[in-house]
């Protein structure tokens, strides 16, 4: 660290202390005049003095000390900032050292020998930790400590927002200080503000997802930050007199394309342009079966003979130039001219590029029927897994909780002991089992195991069955109910909430299952959504609009279910007790 760094740090610290004290002085002053101070006015004046004077001093020194740092010249006025970049070992070491000092001071101030000894012992431990961290820090040859210097440049918006923030804080603090009754209000205002801020942070990725899925490609990258307001290109319907676009039917789907050849028998050969999945396929058809449709010509502005014009691009030439037909001003309307791509600016209006969604689906393999097959597969897996899990787990749990049979406790112990077994251990032998059954590239491996009761669910449901009063079952037995009937008619309705929770877990697990399909599924017609999305990401990595559209479609059903069954989702977390990460 050089001397100028030190000066910079001192200067920064002083300025910030100065700003804080100045802020405090303003608060005290406000409190004196409009608030209801809890102490005498003399004390207040003293406090004001003790804030204002050091503030001035600190600001003056901080301002005098040279603290030019960072970049962006021309910004004269900056809030200086500095930050130390250290490896985490150094940070830990620093924290430990701080704790040593704290404990040492506490020991010095200790009331009696016993406390002093305890504090000293603690200080010793912290010192040990600090030493360890310093050793670790020394181990890493690449580690170095750098001081970053910079400042918040004081653009008008920054100044306004800082002033507003300060004003808001002063108002809040004054309100909070007024009375205990309004203290709750101020506190809840602050809480609400923090919650809103938190929601914003948590909601940003969602917003990013949604906005991106509605953006045009040209908005994906911007040096001025993320484009949050999507714009779309204006288009005008355009009939090309020379090479019209026709609409017809090819193998049952409506397609659009242009004529590329005339056959001797009078048929024409159509080169399909839409839908994208079969783009470039050609087919022969009689001209009478076709209908001329307009194309969407993008509207652009340019300048023609020194005059600004608005026109539509009617043709993209091979060499990149664009042929433009003028729309405005009326004087030049109908004229065409050629422009270099750099000379035209697109006319765009705020709007959503909804086309990303159908386009994303049309890129999927044709045999998946625009992705519906993926959805069908996912639904098969999910529904059968949920039914299987619920039926098998509950029936086993019922037997374990309510029936007596030799070996029950031993079996239950075995069941409990399998709960810790990681899936990794059985992964490969299970693959071989399914291979033996000829189930590779089918959906069976993904849902059949659900019909064989999982240990955790059995354990959980057993707890719930145990809570059902014995009398209910006894009454049923006296009435001559069979075990199956008792289980289904008497017991199952009693534990419906638990079943709902398990159903939700299973639903999420099956919907999100990725490794299973990755191992077992090859053909597109057997793929579930999760795996298809990963493959789509590989295929369309350059087109975030399409990717985000498909991702949105994949998560939409889960989010919908969440809104309708929120209660059970939340209960599920509480029941499992597992929420970290």
């Amino acid at each position, binding site marked *: 660290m050089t001397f100028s760094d030190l000066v910079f740090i001192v200067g920064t610290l002083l300025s910030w202390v100065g700003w804080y004290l100045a802020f405090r002085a303003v608060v005290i002053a406000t409190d004196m005049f409009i608030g209801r101070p809890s102490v005498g006015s003399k004390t207040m004046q003293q406090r004001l003095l003790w804030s204002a004077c050091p503030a001035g001093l600190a600001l003056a020194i901080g301002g005098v000390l040279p603290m030019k740092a960072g970049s962006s010249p021309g910004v004269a006025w900056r809030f200086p900032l500095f930050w130390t970049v250290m490896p985490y070992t150094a940070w830990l070491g620093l924290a430990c050292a701080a704790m040593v000092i704290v404990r040492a001071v506490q020991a010095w101030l200790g009331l009696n020998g016993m406390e002093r000894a305890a504090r000293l012992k603690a200080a010793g431990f912290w010192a040990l930790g600090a030493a360890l961290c310093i050793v670790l820090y020394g181990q890493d040859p690449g580690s170095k400590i750098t001081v970053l210097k910079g400042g918040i440049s004081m653009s008008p918006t920054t100044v306004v927002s800082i002033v507003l923030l300060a004003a808001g804080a002063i108002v809040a603090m004054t309100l909070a200080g007024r009375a205990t009754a309004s203290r709750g209000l101020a506190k809840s205002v602050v809480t609400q503000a923090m919650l809103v801020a938190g929601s914003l942070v948590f909601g940003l990725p969602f917003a990013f997802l949604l906005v991106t899925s509605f953006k045009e490609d040209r908005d994906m990258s911007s040096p001025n930050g993320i484009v949050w307001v999507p714009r779309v290109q204006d288009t005008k319907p355009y009939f090309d007199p020379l090479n019209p676009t026709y609409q017809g039917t090819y193998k049952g789907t409506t397609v659009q394309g242009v004529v590329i050849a005339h056959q001797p028998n009078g048929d024409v050969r159509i080169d399909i342009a839409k839908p994208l999945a079969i783009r470039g396929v050609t087919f022969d058809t009689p001209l009478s079966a076709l209908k001329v449709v307009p194309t969407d010509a993008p509207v652009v502005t340019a300048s023609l003979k020194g005059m600004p014009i608005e026109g539509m691009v009617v043709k993209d030439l091979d060499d990149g130039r664009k042929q433009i037909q003028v729309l405005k001003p009326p004087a030049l309307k109908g004229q065409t001219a050629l422009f270099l791509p750099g000379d035209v600016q697109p006319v765009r209006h705020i709007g959503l590029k909804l086309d990303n969604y159908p386009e994303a689906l049309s890129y999927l393999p044709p045999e998946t029927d625009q992705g519906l097959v993926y959805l069908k597969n996912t639904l*098969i897996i999910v529904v059968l897994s949920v039914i299987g899990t619920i039926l098998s787990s509950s029936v086993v749990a019922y037997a374990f909780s309510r029936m007596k049979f030799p070996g029950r406790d031993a079996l239950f112990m075995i069941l409990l002991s399998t709960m810790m077994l990681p899936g990794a251990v059985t992964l490969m032998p299970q693959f071989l089992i399914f291979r033996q059954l000829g189930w590779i590239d089918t959906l069976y491996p993904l849902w059949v195991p659900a019909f064989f009761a999982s240990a955790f669910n059995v354990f959980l449901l057993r707890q719930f069955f145990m809570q059902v009063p014995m009398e209910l079952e006894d009454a049923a037995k006296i009435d001559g109910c069979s*075990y199956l009937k008792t289980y289904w008619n008497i017991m199952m309705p009693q534990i419906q909430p638990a079943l709902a929770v398990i159903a939700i877990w299973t639903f999420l697990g099956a919907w999100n299952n990725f490794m299973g399909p990755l191992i077992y599924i090859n053909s597109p017609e057997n793929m579930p959504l999760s795996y298809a999305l990963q493959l789509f990401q590989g295929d369309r990595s350059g087109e975030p609009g399409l990717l985000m559209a498909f*991702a949105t479609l994949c998560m939409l059903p889960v989010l919908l279910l969440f809104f309708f069954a929120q209660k059970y989702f939340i209960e599920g977390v509480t029941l499992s007790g597992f929420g970290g990460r």
Partner: protein
Amino acid sequence: MTKRGLALVALCLTPLIALAQSASPAPQQRQLMVWGLGVSPDSKGQDAVIREFERRNPDINVRILSMGAGGMNPQKLLTSIVGNVAPDVINQDRFTIADFASRGAFRPLDDLIARDEKSDPLCPRKDQYYAAPWAEASYGGHLYGIPTGADNRILYYNKAIFREKAADLRAAGLDPDRPPRTWSEVLAYSKVLTEFNKDGTLKRAGFMPNFGNSWLYMYAFENNADFMSPDGRRCTLDTPESEEALKFMVQGYDLVGGYEQAKAFESGFLGKENDAFIIGKVAMKIDGDWTLADPLSRYAPGLDFGVGPPPVPDDRYYHRGRFKNEKDTFVTWMGGFSLAIPRGAHNVQDAWKFIKFATSTEGRLIEASNQMAWDRRRGRFYVPRQQGSKEANLELFKRFKPAEPKFAAAVKMHLEMAPYGRIRPATFVGQKLWNEHAKAMETACYHKASPHDALLAGQRAVQQDLDAFFGRAQYPVINLMAPLEVGAGVLVIALIVLLVLFLRAPLGRLAKNEAKWAYILVSPWVIGFLVFTLGPMLASLLFSFTQYDVLNEARWVGLHNFADMFGADRDNVMKALGNSVYLAAAGVPLGLATGLAIALLLNTAQRGMRFYRTFFYMPAIVPGVASAVLWTWVLTPDANKGLINSFWQQTLSPWLGVTPPAWLNSADWSKPALILMGLWGAGSGMILWLAGLKGVPSSMYEAASIDGANGNQQFWAVTFPTLTPIVFFNCVMGFIGALQEFDRMYIMKSSSDGTVGPDNSMLTPVYHLFTNGFAFFKMGYASAIAWLIFAIILAITFVQFKLSPRWVHNEVEQA
């Protein structure tokens, strides 16, 4: 749940089961399943070949699997071969053919060639082909694939940039009118042409050794390095020749501000019209001939570029030192694909028919002429691709030479370099060698190890596989069915004994009836336990002492697999465990703290609690794949695109002068990136805390406030201790979860092969198991890893539960 409910469930089930079983309609034609051919709207030449083939063989229907499997994903292909659902034809990256062939995954084609050579003019003949691709598709004296394309790499340079910097180049003693020819020249040119922004980031890179398509293999070939001993038994990745080549790459990257910065710079360009070479962000690159068709001819026909042979070591160029008697001044690296028939293909004869047609000169010409017609219609001009067949290659160039002189010159350069193509060694460890060579390159370029050490580590890893293969003869073959039969026998006997015991048990009639029903009711779990848990567990334990790849017989290797985990493969295993520890140690507490912070806020809010709770919880239920896809974009290093780095660029960069990290593209930041993503899903932790907070009895707070505790003290003395069970449980589960993380890493890793994340920084134990188990089908070794994971989980659970009474507050136990 009444009878109606049951009926309803049954009603729902029927169509679904019907759906699940609905087979595709009976085909009138024989289906030929082809994998690995990329289908895109622009692959019209390939479509034409298939249509023509179908026209000539009306009884065959060619089906191309257009999504997912094939190509560079060895896991999908091997799984399908092992799973008996192999495709009929696979378009396979040629250098991996030996790898698959050695395991018996491909069918040798010699007998088919011998049969048809005389009778069928379409049948491929060895003399039609360049020697290199033909040799690459052979293994152990048999031919396993017929080469299609044979791309080689040459130097492309941007003439406009050379002109712009002509004065500087001349000042440095370099000729701006020709491309560099030697390594030292290319570095000198790069130094002049590279420009930096004011903040030290790259503005334009002169030459990035790995940009385009040029790997360590390329430079090592130029330096006459070989990667395998001639007998194929020893890996010689670490030779002075390779080391020199790698040193050259490291130097090249250091010149442009280091590997990490260069990679971040690269990832900022999406390709197509934004290709870094096209927009003048990279002045020179070594690339294959595909770059001519797309993107050069498509997006930048006007770009003023030139070509040259790939620069070679100075000694080679001047024929001195080791290269005194070397006759080839320039050499290049040749790769490409081959059509092969996997073992177990259902339709071998049709597959062979298809391969013959598609690889014949006639087939290649059909492809080229149709592709040209298509490109013409799109207003692009056609650039013929390099072929493995000499005959087809010359014919194509004769007929379809581009009119544009610079493109014609480039195609000609590729054509001239074709006879000097070197291939990656045709060895069964081809994929592994590739992965290790890529890893060594990365490690050295990051300066995490010296080139020598990096190469040595890779060589060791490859040698391990070689030794395992050649050493396997010493291990006895065992019959895996025998233990299975014994196990089944024991099971049957046990069941009979249990049945007899049960029938003779001194139980009353009612009790017996109850027990009978109970056994029926628990049977789903018992069967599931035996079939899906106990059986696999024992099998996995047995596997872990064997070498077994399903396609060949198993061999008993004793503790060898376990020794490997801490021996030859120690680096990977330790890295994987270290990553898990990192993710758990930093991720779980941070996740819990975030959850707690939100929960405390929510707990005090009188209004809108339900709304906020929904909002904060929502990210936690987003499907894992979708959230990984989303976060890949959120974490994009390019500040113009990535959500986080865009904000960073707008705030932290100007304020503090800190450049945004490369997140998933950086070895140091990829795990923090994953943790950050995990924090987004901290909502479930919040729910847990909320439930816990509600559970703290208010009497305790009253007591505390009477004792004069303030809010802060109340939290640490009352709230937190009562919540410690949650902390404890989540720490245990979090670590266990981190050991088994897989989905996020698989989806978010930036490299398509080789390492999992930069420098393997996203490798987890289960990922390592997956790669070994399903990409290499090393069932034995993967099982050993599985048992290591299991042992660690057991140990952690045991230790934590032993320790827990010391610090976990448990209301119930104390009461």
